[in-house]
């Protein structure tokens, strides 16, 4: 062998060794370095999870009456794997099925497609689950049709009928409860992405609102998962895992079904009464709270909707109605999302402020027809001169001018437009003592924060708006260029960050920029009633397993105490009793056999309705009872409902009638919701078959 051949052979040998080394290295990378990644990829290729959703836990009231349960429906399902094997991909079978169920084939086609299989924009109604689970066409099939499909399985290959659990809000005792209970729906991509520390599966339902979403992690249980290994043709080669579903835990609430139903009815009646009196009266809220614990016994919002429509399948018109302004946005839970000026119900705060400022609660004060505040005269309600009276009487008749005077005097003492560096701010501090700007902490989603028009608020408001008011002529629309508004804008530009005299006097009667949610006002009145304790508002009482063991109890939570002397609160309670005995609430409660204390409120609202009419007053009634030993706080608000007493006061009376078992002016023995006067503390036994008391 010559030199050149020898060299060539050597080069070839080096090349061959390099090639084999390259294979070796690549093999090491794939199997060792990147092995875990590829193992995971292989697993996702081979394994398919078939998810069987867990039975959702019940939601019951404090005596065990179910508010949300599961109904057995008959689902007609389509097996995609099976119908895709058919020559026409199941077209004939699905057409036949659509005819039998009186559905459109196009809808059935779409319902049985995975979302990714459909073009963008045409995906509404697509199946969000996987190909490996039966896809329901309907959940409430006629049993005869279901039977026909099962019996003639040769004519319906790939179609099956099976019982399925559907969420149901039975409406026992006439309860609607839509805003409290919420509803359930299919998981969205956002739900899947969020995870909230849980593993969600596409075919599961998830709480979408209300208690259903708040306690979803308990209610949903753990779905059963059967993992199968499939081959390239998607036929199952073996089962690798099969865990059974664990049913969800039950939620026991502090609500009472009968009281809830009565509250809803009283609210709806109040709204109707407002309309009958000529007001727009388009919305409302009512809350019943246990003042010793903060537990919510009933909570209603008007207008409402049927919580069952979601499981039946929401039509487009139903969906748009929920958020329609014309229909007053039924989806909104006004008890915790509606913000309204508290009006005269806020005078309870002013009493605390006056006491702190050293005013004699037992002294007598003038209640003139108007009070001059700077260059503006502030009128009494209906411009009535009520003469001189003691403070108790002033609360009872809801005198405004008395508070204007005190608020104006205190404002001047604090330095007026040139505030002292350390002002007393008795009114603001009294309001802050009620924790108005803190949430009530209710176990429902989307609670709004109430707003207090104090110095901080004014400063932040000015920061956001000074640009507009200081350039009013160029920024404001032509229609708003009236001399009065231009003057107002100029004033705002100069001292918009200051509390002005007008702001101070408005504050004292709950007008102006201060707004509260009905549930916040309930919490405030509960605090007045119980001696000053501010409780967190809670609906959930306990979570129990299906076998009855308690998983969790939601114990009452004290958020703080009102900053007021016991004697002040005691005076306030007698004053509020006087309102119902001889004041603005006397008419509504005339002859009522249980002692009730409360305060009316008629809040002015600025602005116009969509139809151009001026907005009517907000009607409030905030109360507690029994007056001598308060246990319940009841607040009703009717948006644009007119007078506090006639619209809401009467509504609150109706709620108390049910609560205490009153008919006419008599207490019917045994008819009270809580026979011994207090809500139950023991947890009820849970059964889907429990019926409300007094029904068959």
């Amino acid at each position, binding site marked *: *062998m*010559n030199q*050149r*051949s020898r060299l*060539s*052979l050597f*080069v*070839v*040998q080096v*090349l*061959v*060794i390099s*090639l*084999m080394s*390259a*294979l*070796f290295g*690549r*093999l*090491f990378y*794939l*199997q*060792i370095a*990147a*092995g*875990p*990644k*590829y*193992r995971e*990829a*292989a*697993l996702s*290729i*081979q394994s398919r999870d078939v998810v069987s959703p867990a039975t959702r836990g019940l939601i019951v009231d404090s005596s065990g009456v179910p508010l949300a349960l599961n109904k057995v429906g008959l689902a007609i399902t389509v097996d995609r794997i099976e119908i895709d094997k058919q020559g026409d991909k199941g077209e004939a079978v699905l057409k036949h099925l659509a005819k039998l169920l009186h559905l459109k084939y196009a809808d059935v086609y779409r319902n049985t497609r995975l979302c990714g299989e459909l073009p963008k924009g045409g995906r509404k109604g697509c199946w969000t689950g996987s190909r490996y689970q039966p896809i329901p066409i309907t959940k409430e099939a006629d049993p005869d049709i279901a039977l026909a499909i099962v019996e003639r399985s040769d004519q319906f290959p790939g179609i099956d009928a099976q019982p399925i659990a559907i969420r149901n809000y039975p409406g026992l005792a006439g309860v609607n409860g839509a805003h409290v209970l919420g509803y359930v729906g299919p998981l969205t991509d956002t739900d899947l992405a969020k995870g909230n520390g849980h593993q969600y599966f596409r075919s599961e339902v998830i709480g979408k609102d209300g208690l259903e979403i708040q306690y979803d992690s308990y209610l949903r249980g753990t779905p059963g998962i059967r993992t199968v*290994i*499939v*081959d*390239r043709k998607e*036929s199952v*080669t073996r089962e690798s895992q099969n865990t059974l579903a664990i049913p969800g835990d039950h939620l026991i609430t502090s609500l009472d079904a009968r009281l809830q139903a009565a509250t809803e009815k009283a609210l709806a009646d109040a709204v109707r009464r407002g309309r009958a009196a000529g007001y727009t009266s388009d919305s409302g809220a009512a809350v019943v709270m246990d003042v010793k614990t903060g537990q919510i016994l009933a909570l209603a919002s008007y207008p409402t909707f049927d919580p069952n429509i979601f499981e039946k399948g929401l039509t487009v018109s139903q969906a748009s109605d929920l958020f329609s302004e014309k229909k007053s946005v039924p989806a909104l839970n006004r008890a915790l999302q509606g913000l309204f000026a508290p009006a005269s119900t806020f005078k309870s705060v002013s009493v605390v402020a006056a006491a702190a400022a050293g005013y004699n609660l037992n002294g007598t004060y003038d209640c003139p027809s108007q009070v001059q505040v700077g260059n503006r005269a502030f009128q009494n309600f209906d411009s009535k001169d009520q003469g001189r009276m003691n403070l108790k009487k002033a609360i009872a008749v809801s005198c405004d001018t008395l508070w204007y005077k005190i608020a104006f005097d205190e404002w001047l003492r604090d330095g007026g437009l040139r505030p002292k560096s350390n002002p007393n701010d008795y009114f603001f501090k009294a309001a802050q003592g009620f924790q108005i700007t803190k949430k009530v902490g209710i176990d429902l989603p989307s609670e709004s924060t109430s707003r207090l028009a104090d110095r901080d608020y004014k400063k932040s408001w000015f920061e956001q708006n000074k640009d507009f008011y200081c350039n009013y002529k160029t920024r404001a629309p032509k229609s708003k260029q009236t001399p009065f508004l231009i003057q107002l804008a100029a004033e705002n530009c100069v001292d918009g960050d200051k509390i002005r005299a007008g702001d101070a006097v408005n504050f004292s009667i709950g007008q102006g920029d201060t707004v509260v949610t009905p549930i916040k006002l309930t919490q405030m009145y509960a605090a007045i009633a119980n001696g000053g304790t501010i409780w967190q508002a809670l609906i959930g009482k306990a979570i129990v397993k299906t076998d009855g063991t308690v998983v969790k109890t939601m114990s009452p939570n004290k958020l703080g105490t009102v900053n007021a002397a016991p004697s002040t609160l005691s005076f306030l309670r007698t004053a509020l009793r006087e309102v119902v005995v001889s004041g603005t609430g006397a008419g509504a409660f005339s002859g009522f056999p249980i002692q009730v204390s409360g305060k009316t409120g008629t809040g002015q609202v600025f602005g116009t309705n969509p139809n151009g009419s001026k907005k009517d007053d907000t009607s409030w009634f905030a109360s507690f009872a029994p007056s001598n030993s308060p246990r319940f706080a009841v607040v009703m608000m009717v948006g644009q409902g007119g007078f506090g007493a006639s619209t809401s006061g009467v509504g609150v009376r109706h709620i108390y009638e049910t609560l205490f078992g009153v008919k006419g002016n008599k207490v019917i023995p045994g008819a009270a919701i809580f026979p011994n006067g207090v809500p139950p503390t023991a947890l009820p036994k849970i059964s889907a078959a429990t019926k409300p008391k007094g029904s068959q």
Partner: protein
Amino acid sequence: MSEIAARQRLYRKSRGSVFHGFDPILTGAVALLLVIGTLLVYAATRDWYSRNGMDPQYYLKRHMINIAIGVFLAYGTTVIDYRLLRAYTPFLWGAGVIGLGIVLIGFGSTVNGAKAWIALPGGFQIQPAELAKISIIVGMSMILSERSHDKDEAQSRDVLQALVIAAIPVVLILLQPDMGTVFIISASVVTIIAVSGASSKWVVGLLIVAVLGAFTATKTGVISDYQVKRLQTFVDPTADSHGAGYQLRQARITVGSGGLIGTGLFNGPQTNGRFVPEQQTDFIFTVAGEELGFLGSALIVLLYLLILMRAFSIARRTNDPFGRLVTTGVIAWFAFQIFENIGMTLGLMPMTGVPLPFISYGGSSMFATLIGFGLLQNVHARTRG
């Protein structure tokens, strides 16, 4: 003829037994690969065929028959006096060319986009390109080792003659088209010419021609659509997510999922689910990757390396130029076919349809590689060491 027969008798007499001169390491490595291959072919087909109501041992049985025939051919190649082989080479070459011609003019059946097969009665098929590899290697070695002049090195005339020997079958294979086989034959041709001692200008020139040829072939459309697609998916595996790209991705996932020790023979869910196509033939290495893991697949690569290193040692030790060139040709053939096949499975090489020597299911390939092994043994036996 009588002279040749006499030589053969003399040769036979000179050896103590029929097994005389067998390289035990080379033979052992090949035997081990045949055993592993048999298990892998069975693992690749057994589960799927039994689940689909077919004979789970269908491929196993046929594979064992192929091995038996191949071993017989290898033995024949080993004991034959290769001077006799030289005498038969023109016929072998001619048969290969005719076979390739038959494939092209329409008797061939198209498998995976290439017309590479002649269907025979009884469901058998032969692939003339596999036999053409042997005839090209032996034919070129013959021309480049037999001097019509007294120079030690091969002259340009010899090289040109040798190239003609290779070119005719290569053009026919190009027309099928079977780029994988063309690649392997080209590697062998360049290697044989290089080791023959021919001027290095030839080697460099041929390499340049190969690169330019590959470039123009892709640009001018000599390479068919499906091959362009395969090349594209090699560059960007997502380019054709249901065809070639899918196969390459599945192959990589299957090998990678094996990890260090694999799932165990017959237990690979990717293999049993048949997520990788052609997994008893071109993609059989995925079965090794998944079920035998890194340990098993690395052993296979090591066995190949062992075989190739033994072959290099044979090439060095032999005094006979023809034997050396044949050995070199077989080395290049095996090495590049192994690299192309495993490299494709692991995503290092573009997808082409070449089987894995000694392991893949398939008669023609098994016969050809075992004959190639026989050639190595033949040269070894003739080397007095």
